[in-house]
């Protein structure tokens, strides 16, 4: 609808790399400009301007995920201070829905990427393992909305869940065995056979399927 515009080369390159369509990239670019207040980069403070995000219990972790270099497909580790539009798109591409024309290998890679994103969210010290303390941390954050909740309850819930995870990954453990933490392979094992792709995506309203009508 409306005016046709030529797609600049960089846009096409971005589209290829992240898998979004040019229309979606345009929308996201507008959103980026709004968040960054017309600057070229976004900092953590810019996310404060989103009112709905306040209510989300894992707000901190989500914002953190945007600046986590492991998610930005850079070989380095650690935290970035600010991100540009390309990085913004890269993070968003983890929540892309699966497409019709993906083959087995692509689907598998896609799934691994999404799970890796989640894994990084849990593993806050970047050591490649989700330890009991990190797990507790996440549970506490998720339950932080309830002011009456004591720390002990949150802790025991996390412990219980962690033991369950251990039993899936390692099987029966001896009494003096210590479960160090969930590695990424264990994490993948826990999600085997479970269809997470349709739960972990944000869907763009698009008119593409309308075009098929005629």
């Amino acid at each position: 609808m409306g005016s046709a515009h030529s797609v600049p080369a960089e846009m096409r390159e971005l589209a290829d790399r992240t898998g979004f369509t040019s229309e979606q990239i345009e929308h996201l670019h507008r959103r980026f400009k709004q968040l960054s207040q017309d600057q070229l980069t976004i900092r953590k403070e810019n996310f404060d301007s989103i009112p709905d995000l306040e209510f989300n219990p894992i707000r901190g972790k989500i914002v953190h995920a945007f600046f986590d270099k492991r998610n930005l497909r850079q070989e380095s580790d650690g935290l970035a201070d600010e991100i540009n539009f390309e990085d913004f798109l890269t993070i968003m591409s983890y929540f892309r829905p699966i497409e019709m024309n993906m083959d087995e290998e692509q689907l598998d890679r896609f799934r691994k990427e999404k799970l890796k994103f989640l894994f990084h969210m849990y593993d806050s010290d970047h050591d490649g393992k989700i330890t009991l303390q990190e797990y507790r941390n996440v549970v506490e954050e998720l339950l932080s909305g309830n002011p009456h909740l004591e720390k002990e309850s949150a802790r025991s819930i996390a412990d219980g869940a962690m033991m369950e995870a251990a039993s899936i990954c390692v099987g029966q453990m001896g009494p003096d065995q210590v479960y160090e933490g969930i590695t990424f392979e264990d994490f993948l094992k826990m999600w085997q056979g479970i269809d997470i792709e349709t739960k972990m995506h944000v869907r763009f309203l698009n008119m593409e399927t309308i075009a098929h009508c005629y």
Partner: protein
Amino acid sequence: MFLLLPFDSLVVNLLGISITVLFTLLLVFIIVPAIFGVSFGIRKVYMKTLLKIFQWATLRIERGAKEKNHPLYKPYVNGIIAKEPTSLEEEIKEIRRSGSGKALDTPEFELSDIFYFCRKGIETIMDDEVTKRFSAEELESWNLLSRTNYNFQYISLRLTVLWGLGVLIRYCFLLPLRIALAFTGISLLVTGTTVVGYLPNGRCKEFLSKHVHLMCYRICVRALTAIITYHDRENRPRNGGICVANHTSPIDVIILASDGYYAMVGQIHGGLMGVIQRAMVKACPHVWFERSEVKDRHLVAKRLTEHVQDKSKLPILIFPEGTCINNTSVMMFKKGSFEIGATVYPVAIKYDPQFGDAFWNSSKYGMVTYLLRMMTSWAIVCSVWYLPPMTRQPKEDAVQFANRVKSAIARQGGLVDLLWDGGLKREKVKDTFKEEQQKLYSKMIVGNHEDRSRS
């Protein structure tokens, strides 16, 4: 008084001529092709012309708005992402159910719970209430229906005239035409099936029954000016199978049944619907239930199983969502039809809202109002995709199978695969709900944990 006579006879003559013309048009261009299943392509030409007019109208509105330097309301794009106010409990239950398959009555914290909050968070970052409503960019095309126009103040004189012309055409020309066609279609269906019902059972009866059904549905399709594109017709349902589709409006039945011969399933109604249902079942075995029988799930399942196992009987047409959804998403499928064990043929139906919104919001409009709205729109344009058949795998239970079929349909139709029950459509979700979500979640986890540790 005598002076009026010549004028009267003139009026009567004109009326007589126009009615004759109308009926000849009807017969030649619409009913005869419907009987033989051919198409002149008139509807496609009509659609293309309409599109051009819509584009012109849109540009005028845009120009009007730009002159006044106001942002425009975009009716079709509510923000850039499809967000639905899902209930936290429902969604987390679903995530867990499709995950580890743990018992639902003792929810405790699971790794998968984070999906919900993560996704919600990313959604708000991508788009929130602020950016949603107004955009100074291109407007989606306006289709000259006042019910879809939110930018009234930018309509120029020329556009108003065009709109007025549109109203005239729709209400004075198209509407009577369509009502006449619908009437013809329904009465032909009732009489045709009753007549065929008197024949002895055999191939002749089947052949006639099939063609009577198809013909009448095709007439009804033209009565709505429905322009349907069928994809992958080689996957059409066969005998002994169940055809499953997403549900947007009662018209879905007509759309599917005009391209294939199905056995319908449903509750017997009174009134006109009841007459039609009773007539149809004389010609071929549809599965109608009395109101009391509908509640008895075992009875329903038994009758459906019997029907499916008889290979000479037609494929059953079922809409598992149980209610009409607004065609941007696919809600939870009720598992009943998936427990029967027959081959499932999924079908995805997607409507184009540009020419007429086919969604039936049963809490807002009654059936008659809805049909009138349909008949006074320009056209109903939709696409139907026949997906390859699916069967239940040995390790799957009915719910997982239902979800698999649902995902396939959602993916093909470009619809959002939602996890919540369509029954929630009637409730309104408020903003304070969001704040309660966290408290609810923690209560859910902690409450149950305490119960367990006590027992």
